[in-house]
């Protein structure tokens, strides 16, 4: 693998952004009703305008923002924790965010406050897992994953308690939050979340070089002139903020944070300065594809129903991941 130059950085990012935009465009074409994309806007029927403007576009945008957040934060988590199986979902960070947002909604907070509530909970979850798995400057990989499993169970118990206390209608919403759902959102909310995700992505990309050094161990990183703790904190903060921002809207979408980092590194090489933004674009692309499947697969069948996007990402992600593990022969 050749080393990274600014030229390669720019070329790869531009290429992946173009790919994401093309897929978003194609996804906007596909659906229950195909839209007359190659005619001018004023000639569109009001129904087509509504389908595009009020349903399909916000959905594609939310999928893109969510995919960006999960892909890049997953890459950062894997690099920081030196564990190829780490992702926000498995470590309980997403569940933390889910609990935070359910509490936020239950307390009747205005929406702008919810991502920060979710962020606080996801950061707390992250730090708990990290502190538990850290032994004398080293992260015990099995302890890390097991702690994530236990924490997930614990947080889910809390969520189920809230679910039991909530009204029947609220309980339905909690269930959909747990499965993951990208259905129609207002542009205002998507914009707010996109802003947070963009800020997080910039911080994580800037931390890419430090993450490279940290993959050789905290001691080496220190000897090369960085303070491991300061950079770890920044990465945890930014990644938890991104997860906290998307979970209140999209719910728990699994597997994206797990397999997108692998695809990103396969495309770009291990250098985090590039693999983190690349994972954002690849995550956006893949989640748009998964959500397009979710909203089209069964909609014309006798069921006339949509699928939860979280189910599609797991259906696509789990076999893909098993294949990847088998091919690589090691994790």
């Amino acid at each position: 693998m050749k080393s990274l130059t600014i030229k390669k950085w720019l070329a790869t990012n531009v290429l992946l952004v173009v790919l994401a935009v093309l897929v978003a465009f194609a996804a906007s074409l596909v659906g229950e009703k195909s839209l007359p994309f190659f005619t001018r806007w004023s000639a569109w029927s009001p129904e087509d305008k509504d389908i595009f403007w009020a349903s399909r576009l916000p959905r594609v945008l939310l999928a893109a923002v969510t995919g960006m957040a999960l892909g890049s934060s997953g890459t950062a988590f894997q690099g920081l924790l030196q564990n190829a199986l780490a992702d926000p979902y498995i470590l309980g960070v997403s569940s933390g965010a889910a609990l935070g947002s359910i509490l936020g909604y239950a307390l009747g907070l205005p929406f702008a406050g919810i991502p920060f509530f979710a962020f606080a909970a996801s950061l707390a979850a992250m730090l708990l897992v990290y502190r538990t798995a850290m032994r004398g400057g080293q992260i015990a990989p099995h302890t890390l994953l097991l702690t994530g499993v236990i924490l997930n169970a614990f947080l889910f118990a809390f969520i189920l308690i809230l679910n039991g206390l909530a009204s029947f209608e609220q309980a339905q919403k909690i269930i959909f939050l747990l499965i993951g759902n990208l259905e129609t959102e207002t542009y205002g909310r998507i914009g707010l979340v996109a802003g947070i995700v963009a800020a997080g992505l910039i911080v994580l990309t800037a931390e890419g070089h430090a993450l490279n050094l940290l993959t050789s161990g905290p001691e080496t990183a220190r000897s090369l002139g960085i303070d491991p703790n300061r950079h770890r904190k920044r990465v945890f903060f930014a990644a938890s903020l991104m997860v906290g921002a998307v979970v209140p809207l999209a719910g728990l979408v699994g597997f994206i944070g797990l397999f997108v980092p692998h695809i990103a590194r396969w495309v770009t090489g291990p250098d985090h300065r590039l693999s983190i933004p690349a994972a954002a674009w690849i995550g956006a692309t893949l989640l748009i594809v998964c959500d397009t499947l979710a909203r089209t697969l069964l909609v014309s069948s006798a069921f006339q129903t949509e699928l939860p996007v979280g189910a599609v990402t797991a259906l696509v992600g789990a076999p893909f991941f098993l294949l990847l593990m088998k091919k690589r022969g090691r994790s």
Partner: protein
Amino acid sequence: MNPSCLSVQNLRFRYVRDDVLNDLAFDVRSGEILALLGPNASGKTTLLKNMAGLLHPSSGRVLMNGIDLTDRPHRERARAIAFVPQSEDTFLDFSAEQTVLMGRAPYVGTWGFESAEDRAKTREAMERTDTWILRERGLSELSGGERQRVILARALAQEAKLLLLDEPTSHLDVRYQKEILDLCASLNAERGLTVVMTLHDLNLAALYAHRLLLLKEGKVVRLGFPAETLTEETISEVFSVPMKVVKDEKSGLPSSFPIR
């Protein structure tokens, strides 16, 4: 007399409750090769990491040019002191060149992109250690000796005047042991690098180091030239086994063996 490169003053270090290093005081002279010797758990590696600024002394100080290492910003310290660990985590398979480029970390800006100068210095460091041909190979594909040379190249790319190596010869066969120590010796001779390393092998230490520091239970037993340090009495006491020392007729260097 060479000026002092690093000055260890009343250094004490403890993990949890136990003293690992107990009131050490000595100077590293500029341009010398100093070997730290001692039995397992004598505190060699802990001492080296304190000298590298990777661990902070519980009390006492490590001074470089009169400034306490713990008061120096990390980047500045990394430009002055390079550290080669005994082994390194390799979660991601960075290429040899990417690894050596990381040695430029104390010089790059926020976004971490290396300049043409950084690349030139990286190439030079890799050529000096005969690793330039390995540049596109991943670290996991390299042999132990090759990997050790790549990590040494990374330390060279740091352009530090003081090079600290933790057990640079462990896990290597005798040919690669000689190769890596020859490299250290020639860097010391050509560039005036000060080299401090921990070693297990007393004979290799006598062969390559200008001075030896013998440690036992966190205390300095002796510091001096090989011929005066490696006496039967001293090393038998340090390693708690009876040892025999033979002097090479030509070089006058001591070789030591355990007695059955």
